């Protein structure tokens, strides 16, 4: 235990779902956590309370990663609170599925601003704030860049951009001791996937039938993979994209 003792991690979009699970998991390994949220203050505060209730350290910091000023503030508040920074989990992301017939500029900008621009802005600030020991950036991509689902063109394009960013930045930042890897989850049961209808219907059953490990994912399946990528156990990995989907590709 304590694989992340003494480290400070920012998890974007950590008020719920996969991000919340990762925040809690990192705290259990000894990291101090910044639980970033855009609008779900209640959820973020709940995650913080859960962590501190178990003896861990966490604070909630509001900020929309698609907004450069917000991103700078997230990082300056992190340094004020914890004095150092080691791990960035680029988890904040949105998805909206629509056939190409219904594609709009608004769909494009919304998803690309959060999923790609926001990820790049956060990564830029992270690189400014890592210390001499470097750090670890973990991008949460998606298995859609393996499965290419119909009606998912904008979302999938944004996540393919994330795959490319992972690889480019791994080459660019390696000499600064900064590793950049990604986790690409498949279908995971969260408030978000329930709301959009991926969980709890025929589509879920069809996916499960195609999944070698025979079920949908849970946030708890993703968290240990994030801990691995954040810790020294993965010290020889950079530029890696881990498809965490129960084998569905």
């Amino acid at each position, binding site marked *: 235990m304590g694989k992340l003792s003494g480290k400070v991690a920012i998890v974007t979009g950590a008020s719920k779902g996969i991000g919340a699970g990762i925040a809690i998991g990192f705290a259990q390994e000894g990291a101090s956590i910044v639980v970033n949220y855009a609008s779900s203050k209640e959820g973020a505060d709940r995650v913080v309370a859960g962590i501190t209730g178990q003896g861990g350290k966490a604070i909630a910091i509001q900020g929309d990663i698609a907004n450069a000023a917000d991103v700078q503030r997230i990082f300056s508040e992190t340094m004020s609170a914890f004095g150092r920074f080691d791990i960035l989990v680029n988890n904040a992301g949105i998805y909206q599925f629509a056939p190409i017939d219904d594609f709009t500029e608004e769909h494009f900008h919304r998803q690309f601003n959060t999923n790609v621009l926001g990820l790049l802005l956060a990564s830029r600030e992270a690189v400014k704030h890592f210390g001499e020991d470097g750090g670890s950036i973990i991008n949460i991509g998606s298995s859609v860049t393996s499965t290419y689902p119909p009606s998912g063109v904008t979302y999938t394009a944004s996540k393919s951009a994330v795959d490319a960013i992972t*690889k480019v930045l*791994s*080459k660019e*930042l*390696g*000499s600064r*001791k900064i*590793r950049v890897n990604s986790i690409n989850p498949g279908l995971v049961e969260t408030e978000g996937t329930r709301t959009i209808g991926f969980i709890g219907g025929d589509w879920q059953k069809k996916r499960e039938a195609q*999944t*070698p*490990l*025979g079920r949908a*994912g849970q946030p708890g*399946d*993703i968290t*240990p*993979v994030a*801990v*691995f990528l954040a810790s*020294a*156990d*993965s*010290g*020889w*990995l*950079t*530029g*890696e994209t*881990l*498809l*965490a*989907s*129960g*084998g569905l*590709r």
Partner: protein
Amino acid sequence: MSKLAGKVAVVTGASKGIGADIARGLAKEGASVVVNYASSKEGADKVVAEIIKAGGKAVAVQGDVAKEADVLRIFSETKNAFGKLDVLVNNAGVYKFTPIEEITEEGFHNIFNTNVLGALLATREAVKLFGDNGGSIINIGSAVTEIHPPTSSIYTATKGALDSITAVLAKELGPKKIRVNSINPGMVETEGTHTAGFIGSDFQTTFEGQTPLGRIGQPGDITPIAVFLASTDSGWLTGETVVASGGLR
């Protein structure tokens, strides 16, 4: 740590190099380990002694994975010694780089029999011995399937075959709760790469110059990844190929 308490692992080709380090690493996490070797009895006995001295459990079992009768014996001796199997590390492999003008049938069969046929035979027998709880198969591939170095046509072909085997068997064995993943190391400093002349050569200098993390690998870089893939931390991953090369691709 005790991520593999109560588990039994077979590591093929574990008398030296990456295999030996993985055997020690799995034992440190609580696994009982079969240290398989083809001809280096002294090396295998040394690994077993190191494991036992550190408080772990291990036996050395001789067998050439390219020979079916040997493979049957490796697994029957595993069953006799430890009663069950949970983890197979298909590490035994040979490499020889040959320009295309000089390849021979004998050279082909030699490398394919160990690197591909051997891995398939060992996998077939492991699947029989895994219980209802399934298991984890970890294939040791190679980053050559990313880098494609000149003069490695036969060797890289064997590792390309192994990548496909990982992907196919992940789909095939998922319903039996058997996960199949691979670690694809880049250049690692071992007795083997010293003997082959890679260490200290221009090849090494070129590799390091292109590697984001600025050095070649050590067996200790690979072992924590093997522990991750053997343990339930990677329980949602199957069919994954983890390129462990300090970012060189």
